[in-house]
């Protein structure tokens, strides 16, 4: 650029700035093209595709059990829930009824996964606001869950614990005890989160009333998960279309109507409490039985279309399978929550400052591989 071409900035003039692909608060390789007027955000244009891996295309070449390990790599923080969606779709298509034991274990691990995901979100949200200590407290507690996962599933993050028809292995003998210990431990630690961040007046000032999103807009934009529920959009798939062992547990859907950043935060904190309730109801009642149904070595889905909705930690996850009767899916589409939750970002953050944009995008809890697929 020549020196002559540099134009002086006037007060009304907007200037554009690239936030990302490498930026501390985009949580991955998301690129936001911002138009700013001073510090005021005038336009947010997300640019995706930096880690687009073509998972949907890859799935067309794989068999159903093989696709499961790819779903891990979408939203890696709620890997088990995503695994489950494919398994449930396949099981429903083949009309296989899995044993109750499988349902219970799946649900417990789902909820543990949800807590782990929300913990990491809490860490990162604190970081976005500038409270660096939150990161370590959240990770410290998350480590306990990952240990449970490692002992039972053999992996810490990308579990691949589900297979069509059940589970990869039976639960580890220590599983119940460890989970109960964790619940006891975390019930003590969660109030610490409130003392450190929720109650903090700076944090409340930073988030209350920021990034308001109405219920109508939330439905229209398909904003699901905790951000949707903070706007009053009752979108919890666990309540409306229960799967696995959710019908056996009593829990309430966390709903707020304020729809601002603080309540998106609050929904997640409350969901951690609620998840612990669900686990406590189920953990002692895991029925005896097989950990998997015997499936055919090559799983072929009957010709047709199958859709399975599950509630991932970030929102509604859906898998749409079109089968032509072969062992490979003809078309596999993942409705990923982050992809849909990204669309409202522009509308939420216009008119606020950059610092607010960071808080808002933090409260939407992006996992970029899930957007790009």
């Amino acid at each position, binding site marked *: 650029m020549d020196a002559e071409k540099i134009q002086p900035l006037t007060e009304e003039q907007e200037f554009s700035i690239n936030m990302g692909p490498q930026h501390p608060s985009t949580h991955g390789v998301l690129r936001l093209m911002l138009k700013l007027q001073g510090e005021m955000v005038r336009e947010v244009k997300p640019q995706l*595709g930096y880690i687009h891996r073509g998972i949907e295309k890859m799935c067309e070449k794989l068999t159903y059990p093989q696709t499961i390990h790819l779903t891990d790599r979408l939203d890696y923080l709620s890997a088990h829930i995503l695994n489950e969606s494919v398994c449930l779709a396949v099981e429903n298509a083949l009309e296989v009824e899995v044993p109750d034991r499988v349902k219970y274990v799946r649900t417990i691990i789902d909820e543990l996964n949800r807590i782990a995901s929300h913990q990491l979100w809490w860490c990162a949200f604190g970081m976005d606001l500038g409270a660096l200590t939150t990161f370590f407290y959240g990770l410290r507690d998350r480590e306990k869950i990952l240990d449970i996962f490692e002992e039972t599933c053999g992996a810490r993050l990308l579990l691949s614990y589900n297979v069509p028809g059940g589970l990869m292995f039976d639960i580890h003998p220590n599983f119940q005890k460890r989970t109960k210990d964790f619940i006891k431990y975390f019930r003590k630690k969660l109030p610490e989160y409130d003392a450190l961040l929720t109650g903090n007046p700076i944090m409340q000032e930073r988030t209350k009333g920021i990034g308001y999103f109405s219920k109508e807009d939330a439905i*229209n934009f398909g904003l699901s998960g905790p951000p949707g529920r903070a706007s009053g959009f009752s979108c919890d798939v666990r309540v409306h279309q229960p799967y696995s062992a959710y019908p056996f547990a009593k829990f309430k859907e966390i709903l707020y109507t304020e729809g601002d950043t603080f309540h998106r935060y609050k929904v997640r904190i409350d969901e951690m409490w609620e998840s612990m309730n669900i686990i406590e109801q189920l953990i002692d009642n895991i029925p005896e039985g097989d950990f998997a149904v015997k499936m055919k070595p090559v799983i072929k889905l009957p010709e047709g279309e199958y859709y399975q909705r599950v509630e991932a930690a970030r929102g509604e996850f859906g898998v749409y399978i079109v089968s032509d009767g072969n062992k490979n899916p003809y078309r596999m589409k993942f*409705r990923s929550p982050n992809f849909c939750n990204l*669309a409202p970002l522009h509308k939420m953050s216009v008119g606020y400052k950059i610092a607010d944009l960071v808080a808002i995008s933090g409260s939407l809890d992006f996992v970029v591989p899930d957007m790009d697929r």
Partner: protein
Amino acid sequence: MENNKLQELIQNFTPEAEITAGKQFLTVTVDKSRLHELAKKLKESEETQFDYLFCESAVDYNDYFMMVYHLDSTTHRHQLVLKAKITDRENPEIDSVCDLWEAANYHEREIFDLFGIRFINHPDMRKIFLDNDWVGFPLRKDYVDKVNVVER
């Protein structure tokens, strides 16, 4: 609302719609020229109120494309699958439903990117994932990429 009542209602909206009761969802297939009209009615009618588009996708059936819209109603809690067939492979086009459901915005950009289906009246019809100079539409069945795809 029960599926059979829904079926009757949609039959009233568009008589030529082809309705099949699927295992999971009621499936309505219409011609692509009638899609937007029906979608508008489905969204705005007091009895249906399909206000939540939770998935929008396209499927390549080799000689035609099928647009698939998964709809949900947050008041009545019923679901519906709306389908529209696009036979033109060279220059596939369909009306955008972006004005009805904002959620369709990104989904349609994705479909445009990966299937090459152009949406009429879409506010921002750009590629979303791939580079602007990417040749071909990867999710089409006839897509060949000798460089990046390793056949085994």
